[in-house]
């Protein structure tokens, strides 16, 4: 019985019809912005907030930006679809932030040791690992604005990583930096069986998915 769930009479999922080709497999569209969190909301004052890129030499080389320095960098305003591994997708979300390309280029120019992988680290201890190639080439941002306003704390403000082409747990809330790594190291959820890359179009939810 445990393996054969009982179908609840008259219970329907709230999956709305979405335009063909826009929803990755197994996803449904939501108009809400659900809040998933693995911990309390960190409160780092902007005066002491910074963003650091640490080199693949164990962090011996690094570059950091204060909040004001980050704000002074060129901004982009991507409008993207986002896909959570818990199966909701949200279309046309509007963000404002700095491209990770801008930050990584500056770091490498300053002599920070390059690596093939990154581990995003955050206030509150959250981490997530990504191939370096997934945060470069105009695919990832450090976002501090959402829908025309400062990013709300429950959605990761003051700043979160935004990597919309991967499942949304990769878009780490309350991000404080990227650690470049020579080899892949699993992050908070990846240690517990979630996929190291997490491409929603290939349904890479868990370790072992193709």
């Amino acid at each position: 019985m445990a393996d054969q769930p009982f179908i609840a009479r008259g219970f329907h999922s709230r999956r709305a019809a979405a335009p063909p080709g826009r929803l990755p497999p197994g996803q449904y569209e939501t108009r809400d912005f659900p809040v998933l969190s693995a911990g309390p909301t960190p409160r780092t004052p902007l005066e002491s907030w910074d963003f650091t890129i640490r080199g693949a030499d164990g962090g011996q080389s690094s570059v950091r930006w204060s909040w004001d320095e980050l704000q002074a960098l060129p901004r982009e305003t991507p409008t993207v679809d986002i896909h959570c591994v818990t199966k909701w997708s949200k279309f046309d979300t509007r963000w404002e932030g700095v491209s990770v390309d801008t930050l990584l280029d500056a770091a490498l120019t300053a002599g920070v040791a390059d690596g093939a992988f990154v581990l995003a680290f955050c206030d509150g201890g959250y981490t997530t690992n990504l191939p370096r190639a997934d945060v470069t080439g105009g695919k990832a941002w450090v976002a501090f604005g959402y829908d025309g306003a400062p990013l709300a704390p429950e959605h990761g403000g003051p700043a979160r990583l935004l990597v919309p082409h991967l499942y949304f747990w990769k878009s780490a809330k309350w991000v404080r930096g990227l650690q470049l790594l020579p080899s892949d190291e699993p992050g908070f959820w990846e240690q517990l069986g979630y996929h190291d890359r997490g491409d929603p179009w290939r349904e890479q939810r868990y370790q072992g998915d193709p």
Partner: protein
Amino acid sequence: MSEAVVERVAAATPGPPRLEWQVATVVSVQQETPRARTLVLDVPQWPGHRAGQHVDVRLVAEDGYQAQRSYSIASAPAERTVALTVERLDDGEVSPYLCGVLQPADGVEVRGPIGGYFVWEVAQGGPLLLVAGGSGIVPLMAMLRHHARADVSARAAVPVRLLYSARTLDDVIYRAELEKLADPPQVEVVLTLTRDAPPAWSGYRRRVDRAMLEAVSWPSSAAPHVYVCGPTSLVESVATLLVDLGHEASRVRTERFGPTA
């Protein structure tokens, strides 16, 4: 009995059954308030429960979509059926189903009973202070019903006070039963209405605060067992205030129901 004997007997006793999902049958439903409904369930493999425990409820749609929530048990351990009281959250997906769609004779998947932390038995003694916000009354009602069924001497040894915060008088779940419990006074019931009160209302009309807790609670020197259940914000503020008033944190047990919807 020597320890060795106890150990041998214990080893020979089969453990509790593995916690499995099973299909319960709805025996009856009862509307408690405009937003809350009690489901009386017949659960085939029910090992019995302790007051304060909960069950997990799982709903599976035909396309495989699943939703799972936890609901507190309202019925006393001695009862043969299992009663859950569910508050309808308008933007929820499980509670509108349980409060609206589900009918007597329907099946519903449950597993339980669950939890050994937020439980109270009359043998633990008292005094017993219960603080509820909204549908947080449900597991506390199981404790009150358990208390009401205890024999007279056991009951007399455990004075009980309930402080129950609800939006309006119409939102007070189990109102008639609580009135009966309070008269003759086995239990002192104190209501506070946070949104709207009838014109003749002489009770509290505000959120639970320090002064109210000081007035309703026993002093910390009486070392009451305290159980607080309701929305996360109410539970956290009440628990903090009680500890500030000198109650030992380990005697204040909490059950958070999540955000107020």
